[in-house]
């Protein structure tokens, strides 16, 4: 296929975003504000890790140079990762984790719903499988945004500050670059201007219900999809990859 290299990039982006967010959520393990949330956050982490495995296995197959999902996950450096900047941001307090999750889930579900109609069979199958779980993720993060926003004065203050803080990282998932365009043109990928419309609508509606103020248009950070990351990704990778880096080829 002519677009194979671009499809590899496209699939890698999806996989890397799932992988890095999974790793971030895993940091909550044992530190959740309450037992139920501890389990829920790590459940999400495991769901996303499952999605990452599907995408990265497919990416490895497309690349065709003999790497597998594990090598893609554990032996690439930060410049080779294609995840959104949003997902590498720190957990912060619970409100920041929820804000990051809510921005991501809203985008993620819309993407998967569209990718279910992709003309690439594998992409379609992965999207179909993942969408079921992500639908639940979005319900849950939406619930929390409303409850923290329309909660106590303290929870509202924290939720508002979290959505403001992360707003600058929501641009790149809603704007097309050359690879997005190429994948759209060949019927595999998604039109992000359509995703953007639905995303703005859902986010605005939920913030209204949560009595939060939708952040004003601002400068948007971009670069994650092209491999230009914040310094935070390096710390994530050093923890995530330490076993394979220290003991190459380790299996267990």
């Amino acid at each position, binding site marked *: 296929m002519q677009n194979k290299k671009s499809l590899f990039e496209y699939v890698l982006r999806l996989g890397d975003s799932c992988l890095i967010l999974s790793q971030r959520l895993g940091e909550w393990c044992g530190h959740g504000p*309450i037992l*139920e949330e501890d389990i*829920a956050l790590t459940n999400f982490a495991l769901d996303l890790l499952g999605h990452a495995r599907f995408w990265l296995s497919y990416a490895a197959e497309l690349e065709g140079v003999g790497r597998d999902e594990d090598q893609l996950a554990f032996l690439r450096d930060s410049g080779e990762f294609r995840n959104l900047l949003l997902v590498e941001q720190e957990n912060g307090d619970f409100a920041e984790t929820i804000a990051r999750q809510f921005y991501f889930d809203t985008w993620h579900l819309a993407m998967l719903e569209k990718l279910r109609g992709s003309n690439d069979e594998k992409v379609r199958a992965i999207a179909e499988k993942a969408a079921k779980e992500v639908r639940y993720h979005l319900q849950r993060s939406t*619930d929390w945004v409303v*409850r923290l926003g329309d909660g106590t004065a303290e929870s509202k203050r924290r939720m508002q500050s979290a959505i403001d803080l992360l707003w600058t990282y929501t641009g790149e998932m809603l704007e097309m670059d050359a690879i997005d365009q190429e994948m759209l043109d060949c019927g595999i990928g998604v039109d992000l201007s359509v995703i953007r419309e639905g995303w703005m609508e859902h986010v605005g509606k939920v913030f209204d219900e949560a009595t939060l103020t939708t952040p004003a248009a601002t400068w948007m950070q971009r670069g994650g999809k092209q491999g230009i990351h914040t310094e935070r990704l390096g710390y994530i990778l050093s923890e995530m990859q330490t076993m394979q880096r220290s003991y190459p080829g380790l299996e267990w």
Partner: protein
Amino acid sequence: MTEWPLWEVFVRSQHGLAHKHVGSVHAPDAELALRGARDVYTRRNEGTSLWVVRASDITASDPEEKDAMFTSPVDKTFRQPAFYSVPEEIKHI
């Protein structure tokens, strides 16, 4: 943190079976209790339906009154079907 109310969780494992008490969760409201119950108690494909009930809404029998409540049937074996002998002529029972 103000302690969240406790919710008792009931799971129905298959269609046709009754919901069964499996444990409890803490949550600020009913919807989040349901989500918490889903995440804590149905991770391994245990359920087809979930109920949550605010624990404070359950009226329970008093353990102190156990005798008055429950001992009376103990020696009333005539309430058990096995108490009655079945006549020879009656088949298929």
